[in-house]
């Protein structure tokens, strides 16, 4: 770890503090993430081993933040602690969108940027899903952006037990619910790739609106935000919904026109968004299918 000079704290990741640091020899900027993975009597914990090696395999694509190496330092008790060293990108999608919303010159995010970022996001999600990995916590803060090159990469992959998405993060920061799929909010335990596609839909809308689509501050409020816009789900629309663990009787709202929530988005974009925000996870578009959607027809894909 002496290899790196910590420069500043850049965030509170789900698993702890994240530092911007510099490789003292090469000058390369990196993001250092301390994990909670401590050695036990059995040496390197098997979960850490399997998960870090999966992360290593996943980060082969340019759409996922690259894991450069894993370092270990001894803690006070002489036990090695693991640090993950990632490539550093200068900003994240939340900060990026904020610069268009606030500041001296508020303006919409250019449609071509939204289109390109959505394509890269779907590429990254498709890559994760094809490797059997759900992200489970996709949100603008977890999407790192190189604004000069127009690159977006997925970070903070939540892999499994050692990395489970907690309700409260390590640093007691409340974990946001805004991007959480309705089946997760309703207590479904058998969720799949659809949970990530719901989040992708919410992020899509947020780029177009420059503010969150469903900004709930509790699980119930989060559901009500969703129901008010998309209508209260019915058994016909989503078979089995009323049998989910946390289902209750809710006020009956009728679906609103989604296009009105994202006025700046063109018709193909609204169609793609509609397919991402389907209540029944089985009807939700997959990342791979999304890449083939007409919304991306006008994109120059040769750059990817």
């Amino acid at each position, binding site marked *: 770890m002496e290899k790196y000079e910590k420069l500043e704290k850049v965030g509170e990741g789900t698993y702890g503090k994240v530092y911007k640091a510099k490789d003292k020899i090469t000058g390369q900027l990196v993001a250092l993430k301390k994990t909670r993975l401590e*050695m036990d*009597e*059995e*040496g*390197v914990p*098997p*979960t850490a*081993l*399997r*998960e*870090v*090696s*999966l992360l*290593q*395999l996943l980060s*082969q694509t340019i759409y996922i933040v690259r*894991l450069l*190496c*894993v370092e*270990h330092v001894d803690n006070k008790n002489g036990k*090695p602690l693991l640090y993950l060293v990632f490539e550093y990108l200068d900003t994240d999608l939340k900060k990026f969108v904020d610069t268009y919303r606030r500041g001296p010159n508020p303006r919409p995010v250019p449609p071509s940027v939204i289109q390109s970022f959505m394509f890269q996001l779907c590429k990254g999600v*498709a890559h994760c*899903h*094809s*490797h*059997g*990995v759900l992200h489970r916590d996709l949100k603008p803060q977890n999407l790192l952006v190189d604004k000069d090159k127009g690159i977006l990469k997925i970070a903070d992959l939540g*892999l*499994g*037990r050692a990395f489970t998405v907690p309700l409260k993060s390590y640093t007691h920061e409340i974990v946001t619910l805004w991007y959480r799929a309705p089946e997760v909010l309703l207590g479904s335990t058998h969720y*799949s*790739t659809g949970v990530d596609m719901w989040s992708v839909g919410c992020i899509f809308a947020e780029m177009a609106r420059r503010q969150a689509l469903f900004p709930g501050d509790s699980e119930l409020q989060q559901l009500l935000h969703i129901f008010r816009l998309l209508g209260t789900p019915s058994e016909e629309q989503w078979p089995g919904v009323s049998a989910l663990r946390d289902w209750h009787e809710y006020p009956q709202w009728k679906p609103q026109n989604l296009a009105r929530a994202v006025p700046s988005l063109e018709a193909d974009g609204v169609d793609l968004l509609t397919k991402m925000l389907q209540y029944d996870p089985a009807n939700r578009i997959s990342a*791979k299918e999304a890449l083939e959607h007409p919304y991306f027809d006008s994109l120059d894909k040769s750059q990817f």
Partner: protein
Amino acid sequence: MEYELENPLTGFEEHQSDTIPSLFSSESDHMPSMSYILSSKTRDLDISARRQAIPMIFQFSCNPDPFIPYLAVNYLDRFISRQELPHGKPWMIKLLCISCLSLAAKMKQNDFSLTDDIQRKEGFIFDTETIQRMELLILGALKWRMRSITPFSFIYYFLSLVKLKDPSLRQALKNRATEIIFTSQHEIKLLEFKPSIIAASALISASQELLPLQFPSFRAAISSCIYVNKEKLLDCWNVMNSTVMNSYESILDMIISLSTNNTPVNVLDLHFSTTTTTSQSAAATAAIVTERDIKRRKISDLRYCNDKSFQLTQIQQC
């Protein structure tokens, strides 16, 4: 988060075809370094370390899962290709073997622990902290790329290229190719070939043994695959064939040495017939071995003499 050697990318079933290009593009990350392969032809030291280590791995592995020692040898090869072992420290090789096995067992969600008894019998005792440090050293050298892409990862893909209607034939081919891959792991000359080429060669060899009539079309289908370099495939197949033949011979040699009731004269009269069994037992697949072959073995390839214990323990594994 499970890890299976036959499907290292843990894909959802519907996505399996999507990961094929990733498998081919990442396989080189899971091989010994190229400079090692080139220099191993001249560096006797590493070869001898490897030859000592492989039997040890099979000896220490008390787990019935044959993929665990296979994976451990993959880690060992990659480690010694990147990190020179200190001279004159035989305990170092033991520690390395134990740590590779421990990591492989963890990846396969299996328990691995050497009881103190075994350690004492073997004349060494490493405390857990020492093994931990070694594990971290290996992880660092291998860059935590522990989901090795091995020849087993490509078997399903290559099998899908050939049209075999009978599922039991597919299974027989897969089983035989799997055996060939296990048997030929100790051959240092195979280290230079990519896992996919080894898988393709093993399947071609298996088809030659089991389906001689379909063999030409089988070979054509695999060698025309866009991911396969035909020349490398041919080279690899040649090395593999001689390795497999040699291993039959050393198995035979072992059977001979084990059969105390037979006089040497009787043994030389023994004939083994080709068998198409799909059993996991390597011994059961001992193929045509003639008196001429036995003689040939005796005058050549002293290399394999050292590997007898490896063969023996491998068979006991199965």
